[in-house]
């Protein structure tokens, strides 16, 4: 009898309700796992490290010319959040919430909030079109998501120019980013594919993992850019003139890597490159920088 009753209730519900939505629910708080590129992602990348980026000549020279003083001297850079493509590999925690249509209860959008510079983002699930090409761009860009089974495929346009790596390798405002989100138990896997005709010779694919970590208090950041002092005659934008950046060889020498590999580019990223990549100029005896990042699931210290 009892069983019948339960099944019966279910049956009535099936008969009387619209079919359920069969998507993965990403909502909740997540903590990033830094089991790849921890030193780059937390303390920050080494200068001149373009490894793993299919960067073109333009992007490489931008990196060579980059001077981090720009962030302190040009106030427009001070309170920037990360671009939404970089944010998923950033170092702050993530909260995902979901909008439902008040009438149909159908999912309308996912919202993500990341504490660093209060980066907020909306991923529309209701099939709306992207804005026209001459519309304003933003750090988060304009994102729409389409389900394919248990994977959410996201397309983002209208991004502001930002960095692919925080050592000055840029990602342009013409880039189109596609993402693939999927969830396995308590792991969220986010695959980010950056198509940038301006700075990349082929798509850049990076994938990050987050672990479900409910009950976090993720606070906003209150950053007010310093007042823009009218620039002195002859505008100052800190940068290294071509061929004058003294730091470009550091990463190769510190880690015993051939300089050509450090310079990045699609050809350096194929397995067969190992055969032709040549010898490093200098190889340390043993690891001296960031050797224990993440030991005992701990933080990333230089020594």
């Amino acid at each position, binding site marked *: 009898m009892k069983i019948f009753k339960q099944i019966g209730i279910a049956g009535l519900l099936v008969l009387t309700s619209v079919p359920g939505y069969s998507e993965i629910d990403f909502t909740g708080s997540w903590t990033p796992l830094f089991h790849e590129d921890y030193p780059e992602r937390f303390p920050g990348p080494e200068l001149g490290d373009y490894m793993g980026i299919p960067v073109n000549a333009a992007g490489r020279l931008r990196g060579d010319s980059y001077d981090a003083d720009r962030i302190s001297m040009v106030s427009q850079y001070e309170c920037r959040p990360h671009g939404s493509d970089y944010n998923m590999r950033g170092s702050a925690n993530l909260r995902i919430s979901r909008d439902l249509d008040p009438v149909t209860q159908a999912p309308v959008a996912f919202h993500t909030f990341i504490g660093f510079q209060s980066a907020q983002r909306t991923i529309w699930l209701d099939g709306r079109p992207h804005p026209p090409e001459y519309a304003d761009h933003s750090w988060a860009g304009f994102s729409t998501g389409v389900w394919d089974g248990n994977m959410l495929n996201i397309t983002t346009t209208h991004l502001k120019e930002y960095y692919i790596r925080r050592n000055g390798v840029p990602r342009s405002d013409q880039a189109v980013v596609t993402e693939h989100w999927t969830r396995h138990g308590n792991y969220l896997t986010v695959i980010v594919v950056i198509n940038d*005709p301006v700075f990349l010779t082929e798509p850049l694919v990076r994938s990050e993992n987050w672990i479900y970590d409910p009950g976090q208090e993720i606070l906003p950041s209150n950053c007010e850019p310093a007042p823009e002092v009218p620039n002195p005659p002859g505008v100052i934008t800190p940068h290294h003139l071509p061929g004058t950046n003294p730091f470009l060889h550091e990463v190769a020498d510190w880690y015993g890597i051939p300089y050509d590999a450090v310079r990045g580019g699609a050809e350096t990223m194929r397995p067969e490159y190992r055969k032709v990549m040549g010898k490093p100029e200098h190889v340390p005896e043993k690891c001296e920088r960031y050797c224990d990042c993440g030991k005992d699931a701990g933080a990333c210290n230089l020594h």
Partner: protein
Amino acid sequence: MQSTIKRAIWVAVAAVGALSAQQAPPAELHVLPVQGNIYMLVGAGGNITLQIGKQGVLMVDTGLAANAAAVYAEVKKLTNLPIRYIINTHVHPDHVGGNEGLAKLIPPNRAQPLSIIANENVLNRMIKPRPDGTTQQFGLPTDEYYLPFKALNYNGEAVIIYHELNAHTDGDSVILFRGSDVVSTGDIFTPDAYPFIDVAQGGSVEGELKALTHILELTVPAKTEEGGTLVIPGHGRLCEETDVAEFRDMMAIVRDRIQDGIKKKKTLAQIKADKPTLDYDTEYYRQGAFVTPDMFVEAVYKSLTGGK
């Protein structure tokens, strides 16, 4: 590679239905509501800024001559109120070209006569005979100014017109709509193309940089360096302060590189050979764009060396 990426992007965007925007033929006009009283009219040549309020219509720039009728029709779709003001940011034909046609199309209004505002240098250049010997009769600036700035209150907000000295030309105006919180820059700022520094008509790289810095002073972003004051460029998409900052930094960096070359006694040819814009060409030079990297380098070089 490039083309496959372009295709990839096209597919991606098409896939989410922005098809029309992507395929739009250039001649077709689009209207983008910006904020407050301001609309951006795209496709007539240079971008046209429209301020529409209870009193009437103020437009910044008029596009190419050929599109004047289409522009007028587009404005009429938005409002029946009269066009009271036209402000020209500078003298180039893709920004003043529509003046003549519009001046003829706009019905005479004795209560609110059409007033065409521009820096006096724009007028001085427009009254010169055209190549064909004729001179322009209609649509010349009627209300030219020569002071550092001119202010008016229209449609319930303060509109400030700043003269930017020797920037893109010698007659550039940047317009601030104070209530709507929008800045219209003319060709001093073009987010996806190198600036055309018209040295022959009084432009200079230092003036460009000063003007861009002034625009940065006028813009105030909302939280996290985003939103707040919106910026309508001479060509290209709607922008904000950080977009102007990127552009300003490009200008400053290229200027420094060329200055360095000049210090090292390099000739223009040698400096061009150094490709001082290599890392910006993919961003600011599209096939068929008006200003080629070499033109830009040459303009900066001449501006820095005093035309030599």
